[in-house]
């Protein structure tokens, strides 16, 4: 034990421990980016810098051993500043976006990238779910939003921006016309009451989120219907009111109530609301039109834009003359013009600047033009001229553009050039402002104080929380902003809901944690187009519209919506700018924690094209922080060492040799580099699915792709697996997975994956729509069949095996497996000699890997080697991993090497035992000194029976079979051990009238032997060309139903159906309909229970007595040694056993 001082506090710890770990033991978290528990200290990031008394400079906490008497400062100002600077420097060269620029541009911060990716994957309802986390009105916003997001879309550097707004609408339409709509789960009622004034987008949004959270929400609306500006400002042809009705109805599903025709200030007062409710949100909008200050504005025929639109929507009679002028350049002006045109008028829009400066969306202006609206640009009305109180003409002045004003647009300047034009109607749509007469009234004051207003008559409220500072009053939307967009109003409503919820839960209204955001550049135009050269141009899919000629005369919705295929293709154009690991990124976490100011060191950045050439690993060197974890894990632990540093100085970066693609290297695709990357420089890819940064559901279970049964963590989105990673925590496989486990599962999502039955017709597979048909086929064939056989593969779970055993029994058939073979050592399963567990391996002093082994086994062995065990490889495989071996035997075939080793051990025995005669042999002994604590590992499916025999005999000579000593055979089948226990044995293929292949796919040779079978049913996951069956039924994988297996070392592997698949239920249904199962037996839970009971019967490990062992050895059929030799070996073994017994 040593004593050290950390931050002035004396602590005791073990000798040889690093400062980072001592600190952790004492609850002091020191940040680190380059350190990894599996690697030796490296010390490159310097984020773990600490100060040691009397030592010059800093030291790395990860790489410095704590020494007796050391005084360590882990969080002094000096240290803190240095770490902050290290992070700032790293981020100054971190050319990456934490969040996608579209999301940042959106006033409501909708996770666009995620929902677009979900749309690309065809998961529309999930997309809606993502949208509704921040934006509850996608049906409306998908139709009317000006799409600030699209302005920042990086795709526009390649060709055109993604049609984000229209994609949102596509997903929302899918949801609303689906048989069930997405409604978030409502939290239990919390008994608190909220009043909202105004059922516009802001008020509805606030009410929606609060009602979801369990509040009682009442919305007071003065109009007869809800929607606010969306209803009374936006014309039908842009947003059909039926759609709006559906949307509002859906929003009220969780209990939000709307009281119509309630006049604020009249029926209800602010002081009353403040008193009766726990919080109040004012979203009264900006409903008053700002009048034109020109002479003659009172003439008949003069309208104001907002009033015109509202009255039209309310169905009031409006008399328009033939020639109509609309004044203004905003969306309201366009809406007025297009509405007037649809009412049959000849419309001219008058705007004092040019088309370029128009605040209205360009696509709206284009649509108006297409519909025949005329434009007078650089024109300003100066007087309305009338006759007998009626408008007859407008006097206008020509304008020119001057210097830009505060808004950045060029200011219109008068030219003195006037002209006159005849108009019968003028609609002035310049601007709006809130109706605020109520404010000063006493009934609306709280404790004598009234709401504060700005000079534009908007309310003063905090931008983040919408809190007014008065009573419990919050206010947002147009009432706070003045006339703005619906999406901004929604953002205010959501922020208000969040603040109110925090406020009512006694939390600070603003979330104190603001995540750091790394940005490639602040604006789209600052991005260097060069990095986008690698992308192929794919023009934006244009959303279909009604023909201008058709639509100009009616109020039918102009945009008719995407076709499904086009929507998915359009969404697929997304470049995925935001980082998929932005929630788990260590760099972002520390940058947030240390409150990084990144501008200080902004300068050159290293820029690299993103390398997407590898099918499973995306490499984005722009995000790399040169911590070298990937470089080291690949070289020091995994073996291939395919990554390295290139160049020197600032330009140093990590890449495969010569900057080549990873796919041109020896990469074994174990994905470990991804797991160790502290940022998002290395990311997994999914060959079937576009991934996204949205949080996924995480489910932990075992892998079912071989007998090892690694612990995995499955990320699931919308019942689809997106990523598989090694499970967190102390598991035997730690952070190791092989290719299959990490990426191979993707086959269960690919095109050939089947989910319903198929019938063979000649060489084709035809889908069977009705499962009854499939069931009937089975039933009929079974009735006629005299001879029946069932084959089952050990990839099947205990549940499946019990089920199929049951069915075999029911139809009177035998059951066996084609995939396994009978081995002499199987008898030793569950004895003290056999099999070691993975946990037990930790005690081994030597690991011998024989034959081709999976990456996980190699990595586990390597880890044990790094902790001091000896690593011996006997293999013909050529692999970079071989370089790690303390001893490598690859000259002879495996069997030969084993014989030589055996010979050496026999000679050792000879010397020890005096009553042994000379043994004849024909191989030279291979001197390989193995400690007692040696574990032999091999894959029983990949080496010969003779080799296994040799391994067994060698082990019996070397091992004492206590902890860390013995054999751990592995299998490529996830449930081989289960099959042994179930007593399902190896079988031979033959012709029968009826054959059921469960998970089995006979090889060519086996197929010949069954080709005269009358009817073959195959239950499998995929359509396979090699499948010669007549009926194909879908089989669930380890990701698709709750089941269990027994792994190689006797552990129970658990599978949990992360995909919430019903494939297995379907299969059970077919069997039930075929009369093979009762209703009770057709339930998965029935078999789960059976499996549990079966597993509970797990016998204890049998201790073999010497006699039993002798019996076993004498009866082994594979004996290739003469009896004499056997006897001597046994004797040695028995002597050892005797010694052990003492």
């Amino acid at each position, binding site marked *: 034990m040593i004593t050290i001082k950390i931050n002035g506090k004396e602590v005791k710890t073990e000798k040889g421990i690093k400062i980072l770990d001592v600190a952790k033991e004492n609850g002091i978290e020191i940040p680190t980016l380059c350190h990894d528990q599996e690697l030796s*200290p*490296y*010390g*490159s*990031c*310097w*984020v773990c*810098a600490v100060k040691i008394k009397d030592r*010059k*400079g*800093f030291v*790395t906490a990860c*790489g*410095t*051993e704590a020494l007796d008497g050391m005084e360590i400062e882990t969080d002094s100002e000096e240290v803190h*500043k*240095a770490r902050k*600077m*290290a992070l700032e*420097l*790293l981020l*100054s*060269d971190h050319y990456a976006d934490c969040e996608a620029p579209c999301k940042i541009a959106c006033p409501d911060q909708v996770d666009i990238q995620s929902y677009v990716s979900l749309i690309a994957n065809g998961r529309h309802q999930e997309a809606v779910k993502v949208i509704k986390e921040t934006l509850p009105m996608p049906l409306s916003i998908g139709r009317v939003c000006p799409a600030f997001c699209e302005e920042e879309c990086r795709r526009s550097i390649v060709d055109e921006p993604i049609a984000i707004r229209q994609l949102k609408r596509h997903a929302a339409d899918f949801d609303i016309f689906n048989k069930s709509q997405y409604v978030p789960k409502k939290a239990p009622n919390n008994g608190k009451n909220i009043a909202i004034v105004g059922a516009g987008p802001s008020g509805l949004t606030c009410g929606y989120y609060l009602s979801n959270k369990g509040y009682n929400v009442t919305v007071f609306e003065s109009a007869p219907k809800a929607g606010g500006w969306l209803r009374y400002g936006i014309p039908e042809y842009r947003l059909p009111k039926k759609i709006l009705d559906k949307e509002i109805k859906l929003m009220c599903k969780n209990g939000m109530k709307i009281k119509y025709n309630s006049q604020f200030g009249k029926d209800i007062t602010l002081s009353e609301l403040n008193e009766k409710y726990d919080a109040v949100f004012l979203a009264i909008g900006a409903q008053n039109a700002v009048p034109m200050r020109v002479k003659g504005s009172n003439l008949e025929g003069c309208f104001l834009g907002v009033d015109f639109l509202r009255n039209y929507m309310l169905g009031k009679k409006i008399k328009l003359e033939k020639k109509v002028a609309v004044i203004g350049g905003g969306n309201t002006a366009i809406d007025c013009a297009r509405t007037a045109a649809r009412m049959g008028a000849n419309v001219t829009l008058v705007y004092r600047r040019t088309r370029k400066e128009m605040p209205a969306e360009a696509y709206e202006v284009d649509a108006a033009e297409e519909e025949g609206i005329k434009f007078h640009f650089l024109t300003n009305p100066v007087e309305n001229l009338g006759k007998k109180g009626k408008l007859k003409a407008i006097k206008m002045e020509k304008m020119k553009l001057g210097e830009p004003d505060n808004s950045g647009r060029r200011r219109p300047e008068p030219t003195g050039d006037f002209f006159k034009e005849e108009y019968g109607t003028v609609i002035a749509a310049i601007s709006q402002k809130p109706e605020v007469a109520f404010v000063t009234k006493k009934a609306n004051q709280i404790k004598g104080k009234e709401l504060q207003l700005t000079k534009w008559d908007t309310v003063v409220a905090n931008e983040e929380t919408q809190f007014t500072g008065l009573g419990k009053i919050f206010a947002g939307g147009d009432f706070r902003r003045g006339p703005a967009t619906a999406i901004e109003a929604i953002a205010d409503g959501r922020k208000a809901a969040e603040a109110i919820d925090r406020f009512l839960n006694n939390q600070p209204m603003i979330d104190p944690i603001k995540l750091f955001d790394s940005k490639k550049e602040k604006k789209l135009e600052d991005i260097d187009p060069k990095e986008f050269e690698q992308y192929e141009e794919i023009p934006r899919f244009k959303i279909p519209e009604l023909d201008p000629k058709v639509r100009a005369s009616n109020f039918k919705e102009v945009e008719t919506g995407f076709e499904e295929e086009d929507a998915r293709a359009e969404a697929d154009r997304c470049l995925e700018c935001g980082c998929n690991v932005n929630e788990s990124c260590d760099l972002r976490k520390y940058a947030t924690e240390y409150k990084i100011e990144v501008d*200080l*060191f902004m*300068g*050159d950045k290293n820029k690299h094209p993103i390398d997407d050439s590898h099918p499973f690993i995306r490499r984005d060197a722009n995000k790399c*922080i*040169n911590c*070298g974890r990937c470089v080291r894990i690949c070289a020091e632990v995994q073996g291939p060492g395919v990554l*390295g*540093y290139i*160049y*020197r*100085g*600032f*330009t*140093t*970066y990590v890449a495969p040799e010569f900057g080549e693609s990873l796919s041109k290297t020896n990469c074994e695709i174990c994905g470990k580099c991804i797991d160790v990357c502290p940022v998002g420089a290395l990311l997994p890819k999914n060959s079937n699915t576009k991934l996204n940064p949205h949080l996924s559901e995480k489910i932990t279970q075992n892998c079912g792709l071989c007998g090892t049964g690694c612990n995995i963590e499955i990320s699931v989105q919308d019942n689809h697996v997106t990523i598989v990673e090694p499970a967190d925590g102390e598991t035997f496989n730690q952070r190791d997975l092989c290719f299959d486990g990490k990426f191979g599962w993707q086959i269960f999502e690919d095109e050939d994956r089947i989910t319903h039955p198929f019938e063979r017709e000649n060489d084709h597979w035809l889908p069977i729509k009705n499962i009854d048909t499939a069931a009937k086929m089975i039933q009929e064939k079974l009735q006629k069949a005299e001879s029946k056989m069932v084959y089952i593969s050990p990839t099947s779970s205990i549940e499946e095996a019990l089920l199929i055993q049951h069915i075999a029994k029911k139809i009177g058939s035998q059951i066996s497996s084609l995939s396994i073979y009978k081995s002499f050592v199987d008898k030793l399963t569950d004895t003290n000699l056999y099999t070691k567990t993975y946990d037990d391996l930790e005690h081994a002093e030597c690991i011998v890997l024989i034959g081709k082994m999976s990456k996980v086994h190699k990595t586990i062995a390597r880890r044990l080697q790094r902790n001091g065990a000896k690593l011996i490889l006997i293999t013909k495989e050529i692999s970079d991993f071989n370089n790690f071996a303390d001893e490598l035997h690859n000259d002879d075939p495996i069997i030969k090497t084993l014989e030589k080793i055996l010979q050496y051990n026999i000679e050792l025995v000879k010397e020890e035992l005096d009553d042994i005669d000379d043994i004849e042999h024909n191989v030279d002994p291979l001197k390989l000194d193995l400690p007692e604590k040696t574990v032999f590992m091999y894959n029983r499916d990949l080496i010969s029976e003779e080799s296994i025999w040799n391994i067994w005999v060698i082990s019996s000579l070397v091992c004492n079979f206590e902890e860390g000593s013995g054999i751990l055979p592995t299998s490529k089948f996830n449930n081989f051990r289960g099959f042994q226990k179930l007593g399902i044995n190896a079988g031979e293929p033959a012709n029968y009238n009826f054959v059921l292949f469960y998970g089995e796919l006979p090889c060519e040779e086996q197929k010949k032997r069954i080709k005269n079978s009358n009817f073959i049913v195959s239950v499998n996951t995929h359509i396979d060309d090699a499948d010669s069956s007549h009926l194909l039924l879908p089989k669930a994988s380890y990701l698709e139903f709750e089941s269990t297996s027994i792994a190689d070392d006797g552990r129970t592997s658990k599978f949990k159906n992360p995909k919430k698949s019903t494939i297995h239920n379907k299969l059970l249904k077919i069997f039930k309909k075929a009369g093979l199962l009762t209703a009770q037996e057709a339930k998965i839970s029935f078999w789960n229970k059976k499996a549990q009971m079966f597993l509970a019967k797990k016998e204890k490990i049998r201790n073999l007595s010497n006699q039993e062992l002798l019996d076993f050895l004498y009866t082994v059929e594979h004996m290739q040694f003469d009896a004499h030799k056997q006897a001597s070996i046994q004797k040695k073994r028995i002597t050892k056993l005797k010694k052990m017994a003492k």
Partner: protein
Amino acid sequence: MSLVIKVGLASCGLAAGAGEVYETILKHVKKNGIDATVKKTACIGMCFVEPLVEIYEEEKKSITYGDVTSENVGNIIDAFSKGKPIEENVIMSNILKGSENKTYKKQKRIVLRNCGIIDPVSIDDYLATEGYKALEKSVKDISRENIINEIKNSGLRGRGGAGFPTGLKWEFAYNAKSEKKYIVCNADEGDPGAFMDRSVLEGDPHSVIEGMIIGAYAIGADEGYIYCRAEYPLAIKHLEIAIEQATEKGYIGNKIFGTDFNFDLHIKEGAGAFVCGEETALMASIEGKRGMPTIRPPFPAQSGLWGKPTNINNVETFANIAWIILNGANEYAKYGTEKSKGTKVFALAGKIKNSGLIEVPMGMPLKDVIYDVGGGMKTEKPFKGVQLGGPSGGCLPAELLDTIVDYDSINKTGAIMGSGGMVVMDTSSCMVDIAKFFLNFTQNESCGKCTFCRIGTKRMLEILTRITEGKGKMEDLDTLEELSQNIIKGSLCGLGQTAPNPVLTTLKYFREEYIAHIKDKTCPAGVCTALLKYEVIEDKCIGCTVCAMKCPVNCISGERKQVHNIDQDACIKCGACYDACKFDAIKKG
């Protein structure tokens, strides 16, 4: 009478044409039947007057000629053999009066004792100067502990730059328990402008090898590596020859001098990465890995090459060893100051008259090194600063010229002794530009591992660049200092830990020059192009049109005999007009 003619054929001599001179001498001697032995030797240190030829009948009566050419060498030999030596081009002589060489007189040559005197590829030459006697004495008569004590007593400190006591280092390696140990010679000399190690390896390779073998014996190593940069082909060639000769004579190999001591020596050619001069990076490079430093501890003495205890010393350090063993620690310790014993080799460069290689006793004031040994400034422009220790070192101003050559005295100034680069600057050098130059070097040579070094130096360089372009802010100076402090404190190896030194010392001693760039937008030395402005002085311009003709971008206009005008927007500030004007009518500022 028989003459001896020696020609300096080191890289510096060869570059100046000594190869041709040597051939001419051979032909001349043969043709004229002169009784003369023509010998090759290496660099004597006076690179500024190469090719050098020494000629004598008796060694004590020699004349060394400088700037020798194929044309004049015949006359020199003829005149000497006639007893009437030519008195031009004499660099030094002990027969001609008034030809005492000041450069040479104030030096004390221990490391360079044989350089420029013996033939480096002749082991017999080396043996004639008591070569390998120290090795023999060591392995036969002195215990390992006593060798280490002798080196400790001599006060020899590592000449690679940091000045760690050599004896102590050897003791660490000696104390490390291992069957296998290595000794490594660091010949990766990477400082721009430094060529001490090259000269020693080219001129006297055996002295380095002998030092290494003694070191190996002392610490218990049986294998050694000389890590030499591949850009030193002649040094590598001479080393190869020397190793072969030493092996032949039995100084390398098994049972050296009949004892149980075995030693094997290899040369490893480095690719010339500056960071590979750092011990841990150097070892990584020998092992075939990318040259990147690792965390210390473990120190090389505990776990070095392939995990075995390893001792690494620089070329100059090893070249001292045999001398110390033969002459005794006390004799060595007579030279120098209390804490810095012996001599130090410097490579003089820059605006100094006698640029070349010198060796002076520790304790000599810088002033004397520059003005006496170095002969003072090259031009009339006054001294401005001296850069010591290359990119890891610092710039000292005239006020600090009394500083003595001594590890601790130099460290106190903020500069470092370093491996011995000494660049003298006059007022035509801009100190911001100098700092930028060295930082650019270290930035490019950073291995890229440590955050502060990789990105911090880059950001410092960007700030310096901004300042030299007139875009600097006063806050930049604080940022530079803050960055510097963290780079020094937060880097694994010497490269990073010293990289900010040139910036920090110039900021300390020449701060007003930074301020001039930032506040006045001028470069007082007239170096920073972006801040320069060339203008025609109307009173002086006679309209000769020369400037207009020389201007590469045709931005000077004006009629003949009329005052000319420079278009400032088009001017690329190349200075061609300034150089061309014979009437000083162009103002640079």
